[in-house]
């Protein structure tokens, strides 16, 4: 038998297997479903509030049915007072969404508890900790978010890269220690982002998987970045040694993906009025994210990259924060944010995997004192500078 023939028969067997499984599932759904009793008890009604918009005299909720049964919101009360509202009069089907516009004279800064009374008398509550008018989408918001993303993402990263001349003059051991520091920083970021991602996933209602979204994002990003690494590798050299620039680009991409999620969180916090803008925020993030700049240039101690290349790397790492703040302020979707935080985690994981070989000393031992000290210092620095971030 020739090779193509073997391949063809393998395909045929595969298709047949899929068809057989599909037929069995259809039969099971039609026959097996009837053999089982209906679920006892009342319908299970679950709604997640995906977005809350406040405009003068009106509160708009975007709902998603995250439960197994259709849900009909029959009446709505705000702080124990029933309100008139506009919205669909049909039940919301599973995974379906609906917008309710509540006619309610809310006051600035006040807390509100919105109770959705369903057709079966179930009450689904949604809390607004402090009512703040949602910034209207437009050029003004876009500009503000771009500025915010630049402040917390681009500028600190580029500032951190100014440490490159210092690294140039440093000994091999010190460079290894700084690489260790980078690994420490990234490890801290990964854990921090994972925790934040899972927190966001908790608030997303779980229609799209909750915490698994973070894991999904992480897994996909980890694999995608491995692919990027392979592609860059093939293009730059066939030597197999990880060049400094290649590693730096990878770190920049990883940090960039992380900053996308971070920007998203900042943007949505701003949109719901939970973000105190001002010097504290900017300085806090500057301190925190300057370390990210050091991480990028750490592998470049023995290279001579062009200024434009360096700037490109800075943008690669910092600019996604701008994209993130814009998405966060205008979309504000917890499930998407959780997924993007996962992406950041996975990307950083891949980057750590790539840097680790560079930590080895001349003796070839896995980790020596400078590298271990560097990693530990990185974690501590991130923890301490993180305390300055008020958001």
């Amino acid at each position, binding site marked *: 038998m020739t090779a193509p023939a073997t391949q063809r028969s393998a395909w045929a067997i595969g298709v047949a297997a899929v068809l057989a499984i599909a037929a069995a599932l259809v039969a099971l759904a039609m026959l097996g479903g009837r053999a089982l009793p209906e679920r006892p008890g009342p319908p299970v009604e679950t709604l997640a509030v995906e977005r809350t918009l406040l405009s003068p*005299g009106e509160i708009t909720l975007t709902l998603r049915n995250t439960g197994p049964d259709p849900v*009909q919101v*029959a*009446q*709505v*009360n705000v702080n*124990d*007072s*029933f*309100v*008139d*509202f506009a919205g669909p*009069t049909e039940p919301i089907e599973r995974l379906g969404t609906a917008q309710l516009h509540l*006619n*309610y*004279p809310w006051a600035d800064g006040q807390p509100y508890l919105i*109770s959705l*009374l*369903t*057709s*079966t*008398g*179930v*009450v689904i509550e949604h809390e607004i900790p402090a009512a703040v008018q949602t910034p209207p989408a437009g050029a003004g918001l876009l500009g503000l978010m771009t500025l915010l993303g630049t402040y917390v993402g681009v500028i600190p990263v580029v500032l951190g890269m100014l440490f490159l001349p210092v690294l140039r003059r440093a000994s091999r051991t010190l460079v290894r220690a700084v690489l260790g520091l980078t690994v420490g920083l990234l490890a801290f970021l990964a854990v921090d982002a994972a925790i934040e991602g899972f927190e966001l996933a908790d608030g997303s209602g779980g229609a799209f998987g909750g915490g698994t979204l973070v894991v999904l994002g992480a897994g996909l990003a980890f694999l995608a970045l491995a692919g990027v690494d392979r592609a860059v590798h093939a293009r730059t050299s066939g030597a197999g040694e990880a060049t400094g620039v290649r590693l730096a680009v990878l770190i920049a991409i990883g940090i960039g993906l992380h900053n996308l999620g971070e920007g998203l969180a900042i943007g949505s916090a701003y949109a719901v009025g939970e973000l105190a803008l001002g010097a504290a925020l900017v300085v806090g993030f500057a301190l925190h994210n300057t370390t990210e700049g050091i991480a990028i240039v750490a592998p470049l101690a023995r290279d001579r990259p062009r200024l434009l290349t360096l700037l490109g790397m800075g943008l690669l790492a910092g600019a996604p924060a701008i994209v993130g703040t814009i998405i966060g302020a205008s979309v504000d979707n917890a499930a998407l944010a959780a997924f993007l935080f996962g992406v950041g985690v996975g990307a950083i994981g891949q980057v750590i995997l790539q840097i680790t070989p560079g930590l080895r000393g001349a003796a070839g031992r896995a980790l020596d004192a400078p590298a271990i000290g560097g990693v530990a210092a990185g974690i501590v620095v991130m923890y301490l500078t993180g305390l300055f971030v008020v958001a």
Partner: protein
Amino acid sequence: MTSRRGFLTGTGAAAVALAAVPAHAFGAPTQDASPEGGDHGPHGGQGGGHGGGVDGATFRHGQGIDHKANGFDPSEVLRDFDHGTVSTLPDGRTLREWEVYASDEEIEIAPGVRFAAWTFGSRIPGPTLRCTAGDRLRVRFVNGSAHPHTMHFHGIHPAEMDGVPRLGPGVIEPGGSVVYEFDAEPFGLHLYHCHVGPLAEHIARGMYGTFIIDPPTPRPPAHELVMMMHGYNTTFDGQGNQLYAVNGIPFHYVDNPVRVRRGELVRIYLVNITEYDPINSFHLHGNFFDYYPTGTRLEPSEYTDTIVQGQGQRGICEVRFPHPGRFMFHAHKTEFADLGWMGFFEVTE
């Protein structure tokens, strides 16, 4: 944007159309027999029935309740006094007999919200039973519900006629029946309710009604109304009520004001059976009333515009409206008002 007036008229038309469909379909007599029925239009222009935004609490606009499907209309409950079947005993006394049927009903208590109720006479509140002091009363209670129930009357009667578990006939199981027989005393405004455990749930599900014993010499003629204050714990968690009402449907008398004439004597039999909350209250705008606690004395105790009642407390309010127009009445536990216990009197010449 639709004007308020146009919107309201549209709502009224929709409600009438809704009521008309089953009437034609089944050849049944036309609905809206009540004085308020069918007229949902904006009376008095500004400040019409509907709220919304700063105008106050309201259900979602543009939707009504199918009173016909519910089997009762609060506008009718208001003036529906059941005097029973009257006959004379050999000793010359008056005998009054009723048959009260308990059943499980699904009631639309707010537009689009269905409540699994346990009822007397398939309505909330149950029928208003009315008699005169000294009458012999015979209440045949038939339990058509899937749950055990009793009828416990407030008033003076022998222990075995108290309608509580383990005394006399005790708990009446589903399909069972019993005759409660006792003398009507003392005169005043009373109530009845189921007394089977868990007691709070049996009451919260809707098993209560008003029980009036008129004094031997009748009170002065008046436009008489019965108002039973209660709540609905739609989540059945026993932690409080999601909705409050008088006579079954929250906000009903906002859209269907209670019509009275200027200067006539209006007598309100006001009873509080609200479960889970310690008190309920009644406040009338722009007018004052004489208050007769429990209705057991013929002299008022108070001249006021607000009274407070604990669960099971009741009293008679007598008022003459000197001015025409619309006057709000609601719980002056304003949270209850915003959750449905709110209505209007409409005073006409």
